């Protein structure tokens, strides 16, 4: 058994930023399924939001309002105020730590346009902003030398919560196949999102919701799981992200007829409408037969008028991705794109200091924290604005760190039944070897992904979601019959695949059921059978509680509104 004051699960921006806050004062460990520099924060491209007003007269006030409106009024406004107020300080801090940022002609941090933001607010490092920020924090881990213990390539299997007190985790060392208990006075989950349940997704293979499911199985409810963001510019068939910054720099979206169709959906913002609206507009164009290509199943991102110089300076990664993955030179040709599952608005409910809630009445799990994409605080509500996620990870990662610094010295190390916990994790693993092998885990995973993309995607309806519900129930049943074939100890990917699929099947059901119950359209959740927002009945957060039989119960809690009453959302 390993023992630390604090165990952080996840090594992206939120996890590393929290670790930085703690490392000089407490014994901190970071547990990551990959290596810190490979965390998915690094895949963010276009920018990180802060109302610096470097290139226009932006204000924090405007950032707050844009974020509330972007969330379709489901975001908790007290949390959004914290996020936006702390944004300039956060950017200055990252700049001081050495993050390379693109600059203006007068040597200031440059800022570009982004969807749903009413000013030029996105600070950026070409189109590799997440990469630049992540590597800046990875560099800090070297600065702190041996003080920060990093468990790279460990898969987290279980969160240990007993009597409302968090006691640590059980994790699998992928290099050896050994299960271990990591005991801690406090645990922070900064373990990322759950976009892998979709076929067309921009998410890394690692984003299988391991954190949220471990919390859920330990008795923590999950909030607003039905809200999954579809990014408008996924590379056709691959789902790979092409930054919204491409439109921020002036790129067009066109259909097969060459028509800039956004003029019919968001006439004032055009291509820079919020992501939910732009993705739906694309899907409508495709559904109504105006898609491009032999199957009319994609639309086009047109960058040609920007010219080679601007593309190479501001959007080099977009250029390379289109070139390397589908052989399109975006200087010469428009790029085939389609909506791609991108961001998980839902997750582990937590307060503004990242302390996790156990129920809808504000009861906390002692010593358990969540930050970044795995959390639902909720700053993004029903739809996140681009550039607010890197910001959220940094702002709330730091806040989690500060809060832990505050409370952990007062927390005792609660007792852990090491043998019992290891046995439980071992039994979960053995069950994956015990099936009769009549079902194939890859086939189940592909069917799940197709179900989610085609029936629980950009447009949803009761009938589709009911079908998805029974499909997933069938897949869960079939999952019992899979058999892990690899008996090896080290780098047993076959076993990890199965553990991940088990997580995906568990949370996919919550996305569907939350969506079925929510009979309205709000932000990224759009139902053709309930096409309008219904504030009377649905201005509230969903909470899914796991029941003893492996099912779940949906309960709700109110949205925090401080200054902005819900109003019609037009762009």
């Amino acid at each position, binding site marked *: 058994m390993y023992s630390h004051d604090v165990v952080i699960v996840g090594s992206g921006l939120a996890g590393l930023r929290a670790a930085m806050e703690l490392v000089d004062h407490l014994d901190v460990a970071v547990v990551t399924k990959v290596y810190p520099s490979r965390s998915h924060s690094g895949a963010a491209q276009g920018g990180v939001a802060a109302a610096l007003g470097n290139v226009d007269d932006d204000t924090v006030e405007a950032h707050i309002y844009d974020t509330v409106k972007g969330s379709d009024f489901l975001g908790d406004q007290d949390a959004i105020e914290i996020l936006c107020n702390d944004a300039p300080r956060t950017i200055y801090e990252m700049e001081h730590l050495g993050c390379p*940022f693109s600059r203006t002609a007068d040597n200031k941090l440059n800022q570009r346009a982004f969807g749903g933001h009413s000013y030029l607010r996105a600070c950026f490092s070409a189109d*590799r902003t997440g990469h630049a920020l992540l590597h800046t924090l990875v560099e800090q881990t070297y600065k702190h030398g041996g003080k920060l213990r990093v468990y790279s390539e460990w898969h987290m299997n279980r969160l240990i919560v007993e009597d409302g007190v968090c006691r640590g985790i059980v994790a699998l060392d992928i290099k050896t196949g050994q299960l271990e208990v990591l005991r801690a006075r406090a645990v922070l989950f900064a373990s990322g999102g759950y976009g892998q349940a979709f076929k067309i997704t921009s998410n890394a293979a690692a984003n299988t919701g391991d954190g949220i499911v471990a919390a859920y199985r330990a008795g923590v409810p999950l909030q607003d799981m039905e809200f999954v963001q579809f990014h408008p510019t996924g590379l056709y068939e691959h789902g790979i992200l092409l930054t919204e910054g491409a439109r921020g720099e002036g790129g067009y979206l066109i259909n097969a007829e060459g028509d800039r169709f956004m003029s019919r959906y968001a006439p004032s913002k055009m291509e820079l409408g919020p992501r939910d609206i732009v993705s739906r507009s694309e899907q409508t164009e495709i559904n109504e037969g105006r898609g491009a290509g032999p199957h009319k199943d994609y639309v086009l991102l047109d960058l040609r008028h920007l010219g080679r110089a601007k593309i190479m300076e501001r959007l080099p990664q977009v250029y390379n991705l289109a070139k390397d993955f589908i*052989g399109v030179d975006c200087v010469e040709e428009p790029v085939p794109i389609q909506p791609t599952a991108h961001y998980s608005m839902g997750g582990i409910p937590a307060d503004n200091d990242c302390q996790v809630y156990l129920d809808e009445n504000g009861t906390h799990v002692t010593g358990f924290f969540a930050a970044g994409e795995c959390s639902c605080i909720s700053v993004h509500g029903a739809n996140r604005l681009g550039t607010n996620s890197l910001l959220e990870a940094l702002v709330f990662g730091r806040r989690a760190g500060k809060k832990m610094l505050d409370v952990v010295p007062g927390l005792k190390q609660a007792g852990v039944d090491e043998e019992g916990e290891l046995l439980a994790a071992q039994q979960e693993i053995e069950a994956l070897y015990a099936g009769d092998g009549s079902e194939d885990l890859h086939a189940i995973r592909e069917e799940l992904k197709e179900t989610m993309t085609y029936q629980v995607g950009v447009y949803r309806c009761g009938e589709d979601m009911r079908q998805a519900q029974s499909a997933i129930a069938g897949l869960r049943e079939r999952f019992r019959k899979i058999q892990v074939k690899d008996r090896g100890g080290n780098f047993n990917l076959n076993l990890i695949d199965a553990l991940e699929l088990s997580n995906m099947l568990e949370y996919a059901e919550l996305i569907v059921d939350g969506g079925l119950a929510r009979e309205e359209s709000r932000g990224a959740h759009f139902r053709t059978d309930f096409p309008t927002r219904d504030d009377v009945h649905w201005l509230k957060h969903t909470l899914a509680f796991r029941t003893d039989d492996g099912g779940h119960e949906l309960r709700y809690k109110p949205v925090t509104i401080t200054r902005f009453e819900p109003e019609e959302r037009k762009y």
Partner: protein
Amino acid sequence: MAAHKLIFRIQRFDPAADREPRDQDFEVELPPGITILKALNKIRAEQDPTLALRYSCGSAICGSCAVKVNGHARLACKTQVSDCADNGVLRVGPIGNLEVLRDLVVDIDPFLESLGRVKPYLVAEDGAAPDHERHQSPEQFLKIDPSTTCILCAACYSDCNVLEVDHSFVGPASLAKAHRFIFDSRDTATFQRLGTISEQTGVWDCTHCGECSTRCPTETKPLERIEEIRTRAMADGFHDNAGARHALGFRETVGKRGLLDENYLPARSMGFGNLPGLLSLVPVGLRMLRRRKNPPLIPPSIDKADEIRKTFARFEELRK
């Protein structure tokens, strides 16, 4: 284009079962436009779930999936199968210069530890809780733009010819990391960085083979960064080290005689006053003698040495 059949010859190694790595052939039928990573995952799904590899983002930014394809390090996720399939066979193996843990997975810790040798973080005097941004010009940003694109995939480390024979070399990715701070207008440790990196195992130990830049899947291109560091170190007067002396000695002999004096250069590099250093050359010299690899004591005269001298002089003029 229809699907076509292909042999993937994959290097397998399971430390629990194998003494030596072995090759295993998988016949696969692949649709056009498929990447190496997708093909490997197809093999895992359809033929052999025990194949071990690393991958995550699938979009060439996380740096997890570097493998050797036909003997050279590539990112599996962004490499098209169709670009590598000669004669219907495609070879995949683990990247080099690192210990194989299983199949295509190597121990990357020595690589990550090597970065630690170049103080891989910004050193600056102003505080950590700032209330303002520091200024930097777009030109200053552009200087560090290439070296900050590094994704730590270790493709350069894998194919580095120096590391193959000398594990003490700090390596191309670490030098690119060092570059990123040496040329960052906000960093205040440039002088110390240049001093450290000019010493043995540092920037002068690179032999300019260029493999690192050829294999680099980003704009980092370590060799170019190494050259920029060397130029900067020389310009800032870091001449009192073997690498700089070697470069200066090279210039002296070619400038003076129009050819390389291979007897002069080692002694010049070591430093004529450096007795222990000079003595350390003796065994090397004896080994060369024994294998008849020693240069002639009196350098032979060559055609057109005069022209080389003149060309060299012209360059010197231009440089000034």
